[in-house]
């Protein structure tokens, strides 16, 4: 082996070494600049282009006559851009002082809710004008802190209806996993309950975007000519079937009660008024809700957050006797002239079943029994009809189905049938007297007040059910085009017109007969037909029910009034129906006169 290489040989070795290194570098440049160019170009665009979202105006809500029920109020929230404030303690200190949040808390909010380096994180909602002007004044000292418009609701009509309108709130982490909230970010405002929730996608509108060029410090350099602004699309307005004066009156009338009322238009199924009490002030939810307030709401024993008309189930009491009447007539168990004697009680084996009138109603036929709501008559009728027919007709009247109203969390009722009772008691082990309870709307039977209103409407329309809906039509605020609500119409099969006529006659007698239990519902020349109910309640005072429709001759509205622990339906629910009649028919007339 040669001890020394010649310089010429060394030159070759050194040159080769250098060339190899440079080839590696050139290959790397080829890889970055040609093979991966697109990817890096996108990254450089992402670096320099900041997308600024512009929140659209949320759709408003109007009543059937165009009165504004839910309006927007300009409101602003403060945001931080994580990348820009990541190191700047001075910015956080200053921002913290202005917004009255500690810098440590700002950091934790950012850590908790950030979804990207340049995606603003909401620090505080509904900052006041003074705070906005401070941020604006100290603009240069607050890089990465900004504020944006955000919908805030207010209710100019004096109608609270929190269960109906619902409220807005920030989207939660768990909601973000649902496909519906696919393009949402933490801190975004969405509808949480009621119509706000049900029609959220319509009310929401589409976000607009502005694109600006920013430098590495996040400072905006200029608007981008090649990426034009995308204007926000405002949300659609909801025109409701709600009748504002009626709603207002009912809310006021029932304010001290627990329960609620619903009034629907028989021809369309449109909801004219829907009240659930006790309720809460919807203004609470237009601001960030303090924890104490939230806790006091959810821990309130009167359960104000609960929509009693839609979400709660109760025994319907005597109002349900109408279903048994339909079953009895349709199955041929009796004719209307069939009579039963009421001494105030009856026996089933060794168990005694009382009538509500312990003095007894004497002998009565079907119409008399309905008019006076005689329990003994219906015990005996129940026995004749039997559980299976009763359950079958309960289903014909849709008591196992929700009404399909455009509100969330509506519950279907519970119709006990043979299969259900077998599960509860063991096969054929259930007591035979059970049919007595069911016949008068007690026992395991549970319905929602909304379902009872539907029963009233089906009877008024003699078998036709128009699906309940609160939305009348959607309106595009820009083009003013209208999109009416889709409303299903169902004809009940299996109940004849003859049967409906008899039931209606019975209901007429309830409100107009000499001994009718619902006489308190009438007002002036409007003839009301209805049925009272007093549902026994193991937990306290009886629940008062009243369902019905008016005018009797040509029904326009149907309604259900329900007062929790209200006692007698005739005494405590029927007078509210009278208020409804008075308000709806006579106020409307005077209004018409004015026009």
């Amino acid at each position, binding site marked *: *082996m040669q*001890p*020394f*290489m010649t*310089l*010429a040989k*060394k*030159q070759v070795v*050194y*040159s080769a070494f*250098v*060339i190899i*290194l*440079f080839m*590696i*570098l*050139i290959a*790397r*440049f*080829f890889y*970055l*600049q*040609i093979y*991966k*160019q697109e*990817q*890096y*170009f996108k*990254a*450089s*665009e992402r*670096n*320099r282009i900041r997308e600024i979202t512009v929140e659209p105006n949320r759709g408003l809500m109007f009543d059937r006559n165009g009165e504004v029920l839910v309006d927007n109020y300009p409101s602003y929230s403060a945001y931080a851009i994580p990348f820009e404030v990541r190191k700047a303690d001075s910015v956080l200190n200053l921002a913290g002082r202005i917004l009255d949040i500690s810098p440590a808390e700002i950091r934790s909010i950012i850590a908790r809710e950030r979804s990207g380096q340049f995606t603003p994180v909401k620090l505080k909602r509904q900052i006041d004008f003074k705070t906005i002007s401070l941020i604006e004044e100290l603009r240069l000292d607050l890089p990465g802190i900004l504020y944006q418009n955000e919908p805030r609701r207010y209710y100019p009509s004096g109608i609270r209806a929190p269960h109906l309108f619902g409220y807005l709130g920030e989207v939660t982490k768990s909601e973000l996993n649902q496909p519906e909230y696919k393009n949402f970010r933490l801190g975004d405002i969405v509808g949480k309950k009621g119509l706000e929730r049900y029609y959220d996608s319509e009310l929401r509108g589409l976000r607009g975007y502005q694109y600006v*060029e*920013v*430098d*590495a*410090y996040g400072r905006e*350099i200029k608007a981008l000519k090649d990426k034009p602004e995308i204007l926000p699309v405002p949300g659609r307005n909801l025109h409701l079937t709600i009748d504002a004066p009626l709603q207002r009156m009912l809310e006021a009338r029932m304010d001290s009660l627990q329960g609620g009322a619903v009034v629907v238009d028989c021809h369309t199924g449109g909801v004219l008024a829907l009240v659930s009490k006790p309720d809460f002030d919807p203004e609470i939810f237009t601001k960030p809700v303090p924890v104490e307030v939230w806790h006091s709401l959810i821990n309130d024993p009167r359960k104000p957050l609960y929509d009693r008309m839609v979400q709660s189930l109760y025994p319907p009491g005597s109002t349900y006797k109408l279903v048994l009447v339909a079953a009895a007539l349709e199955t041929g168990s009796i004719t209307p002239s069939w009579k039963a004697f009421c001494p105030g009680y009856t026996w089933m084996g060794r168990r005694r079943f009382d009538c509500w009138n312990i003095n007894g109603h004497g002998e009565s036929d079907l119409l008399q029994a309905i008019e006076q709501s005689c329990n003994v008559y219906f015990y005996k009728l129940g026995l004749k009809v039997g559980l299976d027919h009763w359950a079958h007709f309960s289903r014909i009247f849709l008591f196992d189905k929700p009404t399909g109203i455009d509100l969330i969390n509506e519950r279907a009722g519970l119709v006990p049938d043979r299969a259900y009772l077998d599960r509860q008691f063991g096969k054929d082990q259930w007591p035979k007297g059970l049919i007595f309870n069911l016949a008068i709307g007690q026992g395991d039977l549970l319905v929602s007040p909304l379902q009872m209103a539907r029963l009233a409407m089906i009877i008024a329309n003699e078998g036709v059910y128009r699906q309940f809906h609160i939305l009348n039509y959607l309106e595009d605020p820009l083009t003013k085009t209208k999109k009416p609500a889709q409303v299903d119409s169902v004809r009940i099969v299996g109940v004849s017109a003859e049967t409906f006529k008899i039931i209606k006659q019975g209901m007429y007698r309830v409100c107009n007969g000499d001994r009718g239990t619902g006489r308190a519902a009438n007002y002036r020349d409007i003839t009301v037909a209805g049925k009272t109910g007093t549902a026994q309640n193991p937990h306290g005072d009886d629940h008062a029910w009243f369902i019905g429709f008016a005018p009797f001759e040509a029904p326009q509205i149907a309604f259900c009034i329900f007062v929790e622990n209200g006692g007698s339906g005739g005494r405590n629910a029927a007078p509210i129906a009278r208020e409804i009649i008075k308000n709806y028919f006579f106020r409307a007339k005077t209004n018409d006169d004015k026009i």
Partner: protein
Amino acid sequence: MMTKFEDIKVSNADYAFFLAVLLLCIIGLIAIYSASYQAESPALKDNFAKQLVWLMLGLILMGIIIILPVRFFWSLAYVLYFLTIFLLILTLVINRGNPVARWLPIGSFQFQPSELAKISVVIFLARYLAEEKRDLNKFKDILIAFVIVLVPALLIVNQPDLGTSLVFFAIVLPILFWAGLPSFYLFIILTPFITMISSFNFYTYFLAMALIIVVLLLFKRKILLSSLVIIANIVMGIITPMLWNQMREYQRHRILTFLGLEMDPKGLSYQVIQSKVAIGSGGFWGKGILKGTQTQLRFLPEQHTDFVFSVVGEELGFIGSSIVLILFLFLLLRAIYIAAKVRNKFSGLMVIGATAVLGFHIIINIGMTVGMMPVTGLPLPFLSYGGSFLLVSMSFVGIIINASIRRFRY
């Protein structure tokens, strides 16, 4: 006096080499201009003008060095070296207590002795190895060569400036080998590094050891020496992981990050990511001068100094980057060619030393901007903003041209 300069044949000067340097300087000025174009701070805005002044000074310095006789460097070697060592110690002493001790204040002016050290070490090593009595088969002579670079390197590590100190190790091997270090010794010197790196995995370690043994057998040296090398390497392989495990977490992290094996998203790797984005987004033709968004919107810190190449990559694209790379490659190949042609051994070794410093800076700096090398803070010759390094680079250019002019003289 005139006679001394008479035999300088200007026609022998390597004009192509000089032209490459000049072109690179001009590209550097353009890049610095672009990188400082939209800056608000007046200090940055002046970068271009300042660099222009430094370039003029650099060219003058280069001219002086070209004219100086080789003898001058020979006699200056010791003085310059020990002066440099003194200045390095002085820097550490004066800056005691400062976390960073790299600069020596001279009036209102800041001087970085570690830059001077690059030149001093090259000249001193060249003279040491060019002396008649040197025998690179002797262990002692090789060891001294290492000591010569180790002293300034250790002083600079303490500044702390690991990147710059590594430059000295990049000088010593090429210059030793050029001076006649037998390849067997070169191999022995390299083996511990191979073992160290491979020792973290049993298979790579086994493979490395096998390779070392095979090569040792091929050299057919004395069994004793070969066995010693093998034993040393085995010990090295066992000690390294032990030392590694003894280290604290942050120390390991620091080393891994330095080696580019671990990401550090908040710190250095942010720069590397932005640099890659800048270069990659430039594409084939580049975004155009003054039109690079990464550059103009300052997504990349240090873009006029250490990361100046990303400006070239973004605004001039693959074409521009390739031209710069080819100019650099030409420059290095040409310098190696000159070193091989120079009949004066001392001169040739100085050229190799100068080439090694420039080459190391070029490879490490460009490699860093494309994410292939750790971020060390080594500037890019002729392109990066900064006066002292430009003067050093131009001095090396002067040394190389000086040799090319006198290449036919002994």
